[in-house]
Each structure stands twice: as structure tokens, then as C-alpha cells.
């Protein structure tokens, strides 16, 4: 009797995800990359496939070391190794989520939930948003997002975009997230961390902001931890600077941001140690453990 290949279960070779307004699927072309990418995208996975996907991703191994990312049949990036391909895929998904979520007012910001209200952490790349966000989650806050905060303009409600957090090796070490084997360099350390690695019940739900903290990570630690209250006008300038799509919302977007700056308590946080920084903020706003 000729051998026949067992049909693959559909959930083994195709996974669907939602990143704010961006719906996409990942199709297995290389088992290692597929599993690694699915693990990294796990917080965004949806149970029921949408009627149609905005994009169809594949990561194909083109040699033992090289892999390419294919979107809707077109190769768009050649990575030096599969792990880099996964990181690049996460970056691309983030970009697409921003581009295809124009109904939301988007901020370059992390956000967590504390007692049903949101603490928003706007900042440029390298300001330490993800690191302090992870420290808040470790301290008991609900995770909403680490890079892209989506606000419903009519209500200023933050919509969760709970993707894996982008944390480099140094931040992971500072947060106590590296195990001994990885510390020795025995295994590659991805630049992303699943929210479930930070706390047992990390997810936050939609909520309205109550606090805004603009971080400045100072790893040298010269100033230690410093938390300074900002005026609403100063906070509004910062919010506008960190807006991703103010041009799509125009004057209405300005009005929403102004409402937010005036309704929230706003601070500038300078920190060297993320755990200390989170503790100082939580103590100030009365949400400490």
C-alpha cells in the first residue's frame, strides 16, 4: 500500500492575528520560523480567522542561515538568519498596524492599566518606554501596549495592542528576564518578550487615561530617579510631538490631545533603574503595590 502523507491540521500551518485595525495571517513555509513567529505574535492571535486578511506573511528559509519574509507572494526582506526574520516581521506588523488603524488617534507610546484607568508613556525610540512599561507590568499593572497607543477619538479610550514587548538584552537583564543559560550566551536572546513572561495575568482592558508619564532612561544613573510634574501645556506639546497620525485627525486630534493633557496628571520621569522608576511613579499616583 503506498504511503500517503497525513493531511496537516489547518491550525498547524496557518495562524491568524489582529493588530489594531490590521488583520493578517502567517502561513508555514519553514517550521522553525513559523513556530518562532507564532510564539512572538501569540498575544495578537485570534481564534476565528477573519473573512479576509489584509496581508499573508510567510518566512521562508532560503539556506541554512538565511531567510526571507514574503508578503502576499512578494519577498520584501532577506534576513541573515531566521531569528532576524522574526524580529523584522514584528517590526513590519507594527508598521502596518499604524498605517491601517487611522480611525484611532495614535501615539508613539506604551500604556498600562491601573485600576481601570490607563497610564500612558509617550516617548521616542530609546526613551525607555518598553522598559518602564515592563516594570509596571511586573509590579502588577495590566499590559496594554509598549510602542503604539491607540485612542478612540470620541472617548479617549485606549484600545489594547498587547504585542510582545520590544526589549533589548540590556533591558531584559535589568528586569531579571534572562535566565542563566542565556546570560552565558548559550542561546540567542530575541529582542521581544511575551507579556506572559512578565506576570501571570498581564492583560489590561480598554480604559481611559488618567496619568501620562514621559520617560527618559538614563542608564548611567547620574540623576537616579526623578519624577517632575508637568503643566498641561507642556504635556500637550509633548503629546503632539509623539503623535503618529495627527495629520489624519487634524484639528479634532488637537482638541482630543488637549482634553487628554488637561484631564490627566502628567509627569516627566528620569530613571536609571526601571524597577525604581516604576515604584516612584506608582507611589506618586497612589497605585503602589
Amino acid at each position: 500500500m503506498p504511503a500517503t502523507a497525513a493531511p496537516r491540521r489547518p491550525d498547524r500551518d496557518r495562524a491568524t492575528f489582529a493588530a489594531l485595525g490590521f488583520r493578517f495571517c502567517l502561513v508555514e513555509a519553514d517550521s522553525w520560523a513559523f513556530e518562532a513567529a507564532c510564539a512572538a505574535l501569540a498575544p495578537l492571535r485570534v481564534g476565528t480567522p477573519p473573512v479576509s486578511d489584509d496581508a499573508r506573511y510567510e518566512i521562508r528559509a532560503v539556506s541554512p542561515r538565511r531567510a526571507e519574509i514574503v508578503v502576499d507572494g512578494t519577498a520584501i526582506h532577506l534576513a541573515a538568519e531566521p531569528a532576524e526574520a522574526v524580529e523584522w516581521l514584528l517590526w513590519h506588523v507594527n508598521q502596518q498596524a499604524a498605517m491601517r488603524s487611522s480611525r484611532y488617534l495614535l501615539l508613539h507610546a506604551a500604556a498600562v492599566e491601573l485600576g481601570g484607568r490607563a497610564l500612558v508613556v509617550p516617548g521616542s525610540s530609546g526613551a525607555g518606554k518598553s522598559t518602564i512599561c515592563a516594570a509596571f507590568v511586573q509590579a502588577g499593572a495590566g499590559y496594554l501596549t509598549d510602542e503604539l497607543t491607540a485612542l478612540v477619538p470620541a472617548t479617549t479610550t485606549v484600545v489594547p495592542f498587547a504585542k510582545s514587548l520590544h526589549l533589548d538584552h540590556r533591558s531584559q537583564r535589568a528586569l531579571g528576564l534572562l535566565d542563566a543559560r542565556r546570560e552565558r550566551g548559550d542561546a540567542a536572546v530575541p529582542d521581544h518578550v511575551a507579556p506572559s513572561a512578565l506576570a501571570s495575568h498581564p492583560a489590561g482592558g480598554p480604559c481611559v487615561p488618567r496619568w501620562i508619564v514621559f520617560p527618559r532612561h538614563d542608564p548611567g544613573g547620574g540623576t537616579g530617579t526623578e519624577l517632575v510634574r508637568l503643566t498641561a501645556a507642556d504635556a500637550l506639546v509633548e503629546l503632539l510631538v509623539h503623535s503618529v497620525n495627527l495629520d489624519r485627525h487634524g484639528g479634532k486630534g488637537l482638541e482630543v490631545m488637549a482634553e487628554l493633557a488637561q484631564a490627566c496628571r502628567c509627569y516627566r520621569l528620569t530613571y536609571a533603574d526601571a524597577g525604581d522608576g516604576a515604584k516612584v511613579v506608582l507611589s506618586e499616583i497612589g497605585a503602589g503595590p
Partner: protein
Amino acid sequence: MPDMTRVSVEDSLFVYDERGKRFFVLNTSAAAVYDAVDGQASAAEIADRLAALHPEQADAVRRDVAFAIEGLLELGVVAEEAAGAAGT
């Protein structure tokens, strides 16, 4: 001003330019000049009006008004046609 959305927060006036997709932040003095530029009043009339509010610094106010109108025009916060009278 058409195509401009304005929001006051504390002592600052935030202006969003819908056409240029830009925002501006004006302090109290610049906001007073911005409000006075209506396409009707000349720069001298605006300066006189604002100087009357601060008679002890009238000369400085007149200089500041001229400087502010020039700056608002340069940045495009006020349109040429609106500032036509003030700019002359």
C-alpha cells in the same frame, strides 16, 4: 482664521494648520497679536491697541508686535491676505 483650529491650554494657544498639517504653540503675547490680525487693522493700529494695554512699555510693545507679525507671516500661522493690512 479658516483652516486653523485653535485650543487654549493654560497660558498657551495651540493652533493646528489643517492645510500645512502643522501645529504651532503661541505664548500669551504672540496669541494676542494672532487674535488681532484680522485683515482689517494695520500693524500700527494693532500695535497701538496692544500698547494701550501696557502704556508703561508702549515702545517695546510696538516693536514686539512688528516682530510677532513678521514671525507669524514667515511661519504661515497667519495668511498673507489676513495679514495684508497688518503687514503693510
